[in-house]
């Protein structure tokens, strides 16, 4: 009798703890089926719409997010470089490529848990554009020539590229968007650059 009760209690405890923990874990992942992935960047166009999946709905309720509407813009997040290594604010990265058509875009660095910003960031009206309309930005903890994005020595960082008033935020024209590549040039304490291939790039 006592054994049955203990077992029932065990099953119940396991179910409640496991169920709660699994929801918490799933919400932390934030990669729903509706995520829009381009290279290292991910956006969540359905986040905050009535059609969003239950995980997105629970996530915005838990974290007090008010996602941008389709007429406002769309935010792209990157937390890994092009080789799949976690971005760190102590490293130097080169962002190179084109940004989709938008009236305005901003780029900022925040901590992985979104609690801290490294700096206000850069925006399209105050950076040097290349002749082919592409951009080249260096994200580093210390000042760099050209377009410099301060990474503020955050241990783990996320790059946030937000496009404002852009057709990409609508349902159409999502197929062929291209966003800047994020390449690691080196990390602090490891010399100017870690892999030899990057060192050559850095010298040139």
């Amino acid at each position: 009798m006592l054994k049955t009760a203990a077992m029932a209690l065990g099953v119940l405890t396991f179910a409640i703890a496991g169920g709660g923990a699994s929801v918490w874990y799933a919400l932390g992942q934030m990669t729903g089926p509706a995520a829009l992935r381009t290279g290292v960047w991910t956006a969540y166009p359905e986040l905050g719409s009535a059609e969003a999946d239950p995980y997105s709905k629970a996530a915005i309720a838990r974290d007090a997010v008010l996602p941008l509407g389709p007429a406002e813009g769309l935010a792209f997040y990157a937390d890994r470089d092009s080789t799949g290594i976690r971005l760190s604010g102590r490293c130097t990265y080169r962002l190179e490529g084109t940004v989709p058509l938008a009236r305005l875009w901003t780029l900022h660095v925040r901590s992985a848990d979104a609690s801290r910003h490294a700096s206000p960031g850069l925006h399209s009206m105050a950076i040097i554009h290349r002749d082919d309309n592409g951009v080249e930005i260096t994200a580093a903890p210390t000042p760099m020539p050209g377009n410099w994005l301060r990474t503020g020595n955050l241990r783990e960082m996320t790059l946030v590229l937000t496009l404002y008033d852009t057709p990409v935020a609508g349902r159409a024209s999502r197929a062929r968007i291209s966003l800047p590549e994020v390449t690691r040039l080196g990390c602090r304490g490891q010399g100017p650059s870690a892999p030899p291939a990057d060192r050559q790039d850095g010298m040139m």
Partner: protein
Amino acid sequence: MAIRTVHCLILALLGVVIVHVTVLFLLPLYSERDAWSRLSALGAPLQTVAIERPSGGVAIRDNDPLFRSAACRFDLAAGPVHIMASDGAPFWSVSVYNRWGQNIYSFNDRITISRDIDLLLASPAQMIALRQDLPPAYEQSILVEVEDPLGIAVVRGFRPDDSYAAIIDRFLGSLRCTPQ
């Protein structure tokens, strides 16, 4: 005995699934950390509150640091709500959210000729009455039909650098949410 253990294991896993689904669907209904609850702590309904706090904190997660925003919570049960602000920011956008933080309607400064924000929120029933006899004061307003009576209106203004601080403060300070 072994069969009993297997039964318990299956029961426990089934329990995990049931609790997972229940928590998932109840979380938005009972969350005390969602945008609505956080804004409730900052001001009364229809009162304009700044989302970026002077202390440096932010009431809403994931805001663009190059933007400043203000919000007001509204309740359409007492009648339509008029939202107004005068132009100022080099780029601005407005979103209307329901009580659960879902985006119902959004627009940016390109939609209006005057570049002023002039928005009238009404429930479907109030909208029918408004369409039949629109007061002249709202002839230029954007009419938005909102199903849920409770919601949040957010105005975001682009602040390219500190030299725009006064302009953006004036722009967000001009935001008024008034019951009709």
